[in-house]
């Protein structure tokens, strides 16, 4: 396989993977209104746990890490997703129940920083700043995949996972649960007065989104075979935010478009472009600036994103419009002395 195809399939992998990550953040922020500025932390936990559960016991590997169960794909990936869910429960219990959106965002940034510092500095957990490496490539030995053939294979596998997760997410967002989440996003106070236990739904949203984050992270470590703290600097959260804001909050198709525009074309494609003469490596550093500018431009001129959230139209109409609308009849209001006086004049339908 030529180098070009290797790059292309790498880009395809990141397209699908960030589509998964974007769906996870979208249900939290786009559907429920939870500003999860710690999102990349959930991705990292998923990546580390997926890696550490697929690696063998740490003894003799030259690395330090917990778990080391040598589990195969997709068990390790599921555990990565569930580990991110566990973190979500912890975060929700300390922050989600009592804090308003803006304060919650600040707390979540703090959570992200704490998580980063702990994993980066506490070596016995996930090998500290060196991170995990030599993570087994799924199915590589069974299918006798070489380094070159593994890349298109895993890109396709990620595509299948993304497709499955898109189907699941579509079912959720189109359901009454999705509608209730959007009601909470629009006004959690009103949702509560309609009998919705807001915390329960926010927690559900956090769990779903975190599972997606964990799986997305798990796929990253299995694709590259390694993962360390430079891959998930807290600011990386804003790249995922850029994906959903550029693509279109609350629209799964928009998320795929956002993943293509931001993650594939702006973040990863430039790394494969030839260097600017006299400025080696400059292109890779410019990409974050371009993403930042794009984000500002979108928020100014097209805040709804490239593919805006769709209006969910009524699935059917009334077979017959009832003739018993109140508008169509005079209303006789009894007065306090018991007599009846017509005080409301007859009106035509719809005023």
């Amino acid at each position, binding site marked *: 396989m030529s180098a070009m195809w290797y790059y292309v399939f790498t880009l395809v992998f990141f397209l699908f993977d960030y589509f998964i990550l974007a769906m996870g953040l979208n249900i939290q922020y786009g559907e429920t209104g939870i500003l999860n500025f710690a999102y990349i932390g959930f991705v990292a936990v998923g990546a580390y746990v997926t890696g550490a559960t697929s690696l063998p016991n740490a003894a003799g590997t030259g690395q330090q890490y917990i778990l080391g169960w040598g589990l195969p794909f997709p068990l390790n990936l599921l555990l990565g997703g569930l580990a991110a869910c566990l973190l979500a429960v912890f975060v929700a219990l300390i922050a989600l129940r009592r804090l308003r959106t803006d304060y919650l965002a600040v707390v979540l940034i703090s959570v992200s920083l704490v998580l980063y510092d702990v994993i980066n500095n506490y070596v016995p957990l996930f090998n500290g700043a060196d991170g995990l490496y030599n993570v087994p490539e799924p199915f590589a030995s069974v299918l006798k995949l070489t380094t070159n053939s593994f890349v298109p294979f895993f890109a396709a596998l990620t595509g299948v996972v993304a497709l499955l997760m898109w189907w*699941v997410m579509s*079912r*959720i967002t189109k*359901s*009454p*649960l999705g*509608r*209730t989440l*959007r*009601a909470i*996003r*629009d*006004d959690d*106070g*009103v*949702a*509560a*007065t*309609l*009998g*919705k*236990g*807001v915390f329960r*739904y926010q927690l*559900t949203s956090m769990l*779903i989104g975190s599972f997606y984050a964990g799986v997305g992270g798990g796929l990253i470590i299995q694709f590259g075979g390694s993962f360390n703290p430079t891959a998930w600097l807290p600011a990386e959260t804003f790249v995922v935010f850029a994906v959903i804001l550029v693509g279109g909050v*609350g629209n799964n198709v928009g998320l795929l478009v956002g993943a293509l525009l931001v993650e594939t074309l702006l973040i990863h494609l430039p790394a494969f472009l030839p260097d600017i003469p006299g400025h080696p490596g400059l292109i890779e550093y410019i990409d974050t600036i371009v993403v930042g500018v794009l984000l500002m431009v979108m928020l100014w001129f097209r805040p709804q994103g490239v593919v805006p*959230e769709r*209006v*969910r*139209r*009524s*699935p*059917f*109409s*009334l077979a017959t*419009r*009832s003739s*018993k*609308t*109140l*508008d169509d009849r005079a*209303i006789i*209001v009894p*007065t*306090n002395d018991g007599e009846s006086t017509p*005080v*409301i*004049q007859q*009106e035509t*339908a*719809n*005023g």
Partner: protein
Amino acid sequence: MAETTNGGATSPESVFALRCQELKKSFQGVMAVTGATFDVPQGMITALIGPNGAGKTTVVNILSGMMKSDSGHMQIGSTDVTNWESFKIARLGLMRTFQLSRELGGLTVLENLLVAPQHQSGESLLNIFFRPVLVKREERENTERALEILNTYGLYDLRDTRARELSGGQKKLLEIARGVMASPKILLLDEPMAGVNPALIDRIGGYILDLKAQGMTILMVEHNLNVVEKICDHVIVLAEGRTLATGRLSELRANQDVVQAYLGEVINASPTR
């Protein structure tokens, strides 16, 4: 029917849907509610009136669980719901609307109503994937009912419009329709006629009477005494955060305390219809 009393509950023999006793609430030392005590008779339309700053909206916020009282008690039927969270109060059958409309702006008009029913099977993750037939059937029933209500309230043609795009009056109607969709036992209406044109005031008045005819208990904050006189069975007067008097409006007109605190200025200020 309730009697005119000063600062207390309605007649002891009346069946109440909602009762509050000595509710108090202060904001950083400023007393907003200093002792609200009243009963809301079951199956009737009760008006909560009083001058600006009397604490009416604060009382409604406490009753709906959106604020916690500093002291006092609140009861729905025989259940003590003092300082319950609002979603639990709603599940007991108390719904509310807001003085400044709080529509769910990103949702369509129809979706605003579809959010309202309690305990929808499609709100559970497990049901979505393992009981899809039940979810679909229930959703269809809810949609049919919501469309009927929208038709009744003259909002049917706007069913696929995002709620934030409605006019002020339409938003008022939507809030009432949303409350009705939840099939409440008690509906709190916070100034439902505020900022709407006279024709729409008449329509809203008609809808409220229709809800009463269906057996619903209504408590409405209202400044328009013509409306109060025409559709309300019972009136509670709040002044300076406490219950000044309760009874029929015609009886309260004879109460000097009430006239001095509120009615005098309103009657003098408002044109006769």
